[in-house]
C-alpha cells in the first residue's frame, strides 16, 4: 500500500473544504427544491480495493446506485456513487418538481444524483481554484425491475465482479437528509490513489497560507 495517508492537518483541511462545499451545495439545493436539507458531519476514510465491497455492503441495503465520474485540472478525479434507500423513491418526482408520469423512477434517481454530485463538486472545485467536468451519470443497478430478494447484495456483487486497477482510495461519505420529504441519500466519493497524491499537494498549498 502506498503512503497516501493524510496527516491530521491535511485531513482537517480537506474536511473543512468539504464542509463548506456541502453547506453551499445544500443551500443551492434547498432553494432549488424549496425544502430544507439537513447536514451531518461528513466522514473521510481510506479504503483498499479489497475492502471496498465490504465497506459498501455495510452502507445498508441500497435499492439503486448511480455512478458519475468527475475530473478536474491537476489530476483531480474520481467517481461519485449515489446510494438510495428503499421507499425513498416514492416522492422523488414531487421533490424534483416533475409530474410523476413525466419520467420513470430511474430517470428521477439519475436526475437527482447528477444535481447532488455536480452542485457539491462545483463548490468543492471552486474552493481549490479548480473546475470540474463530469461524465454522464449511469444507473449501476436498480432493484425496481428485478426481484427484491437479490437487491441487498447487488452493489457489493457489482463491485466484486470488477477487477480494480487501484489499491487504495479515499472515500468521502456525505449523507443528505431532505426533511420535508423524509428522504435520505448517501453520496460516496471515491478518489483513486494517484488522484489522492494530487489532492494532497493542493491541500499542502492551502495549508502553507496558514
Amino acid at each position, binding site marked *: 500500500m502506498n503512503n497516501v495517508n493524510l496527516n491530521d*492537518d491535511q485531513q*482537517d483541511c480537506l474536511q473543512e473544504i468539504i*464542509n463548506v462545499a*456541502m453547506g453551499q451545495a445544500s443551500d443551492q439545493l434547498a432553494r432549488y427544491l424549496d425544502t430544507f436539507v439537513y*447536514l451531518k458531519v461528513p466522514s473521510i476514510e481510506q479504503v483498499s480495493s479489497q475492502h471496498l465491497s465490504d465497506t459498501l455492503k455495510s452502507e445498508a441495503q441500497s435499492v439503486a446506485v448511480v455512478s458519475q465520474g468527475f475530473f478536474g485540472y491537476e489530476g483531480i478525479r474520481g467517481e461519485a456513487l449515489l446510494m438510495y434507500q428503499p421507499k425513498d423513491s416514492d416522492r422523488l418526482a414531487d421533490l424534483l418538481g416533475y409530474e410523476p408520469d413525466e419520467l420513470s423512477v430511474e430517470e428521477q434517481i439519475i436526475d437527482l444524483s447528477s444535481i447532488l454530485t455536480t452542485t457539491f463538486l462545483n463548490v468543492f472545485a471552486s474552493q481549490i481554484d479548480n473546475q470540474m467536468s463530469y461524465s454522464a451519470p449511469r444507473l449501476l443497478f436498480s432493484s425496481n425491475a428485478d426481484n427484491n430478494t437479490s437487491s441487498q447484495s447487488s452493489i457489493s456483487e457489482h463491485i466484486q465482479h470488477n477487477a480494480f486497477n487501484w489499491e487504495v482510495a479515499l472515500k468521502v461519505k456525505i449523507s443528505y437528509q431532505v426533511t420535508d420529504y423524509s428522504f435520505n441519500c448517501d453520496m460516496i466519493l471515491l478518489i483513486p490513489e494517484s488522484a489522492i497524491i494530487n489532492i494532497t499537494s493542493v491541500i499542502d498549498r492551502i495549508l502553507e497560507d*496558514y
Partner: protein
Amino acid sequence: MSLSVLICDDSNMARKQVLRILPESLSENVQLATNGVEALEILNNQAIDMLFLDLTMPVVDGIGVLQGIKEAGITVKVFVISADIQPEMQNKVLELGAKAFLRKPVQLDVLNSHLKEHGII
C-alpha cells in the same frame, strides 16, 4: 481596550482562518474550543465578550451552545460562522440570540463590517 474572545470550531484550519483576520483589539486575549462542551465550560467560568461559533460540530453543536447560553443567562456577543447557510438555519440562530451570521470561509471585509455594525470596533 482588548476584549476576551472565544473561537469555537472543530476544525483547526477554520479556527486559524478566524484568528488571522481578527482585528488587533480582538486578537490579544483569545481562547480556543474544539466543540460545544468545551465552549460552554469556558463560558460558564469566565467572562467572555465575543464568541465566534461554528454550527456543525461533534458532541454539542452550535445550536446546543446557543441554547446553553440562553438557559444560563450568559452575556456574550455571538457571531455564528458556518458552512450551513440555508435561510432556515440563519433565521434559527438569529432567533436563538446570535448577533450575526457569517458564511464560511469568512472574509476579512465581511467580518469587519459586521464588527463595526455591532459597535465592537
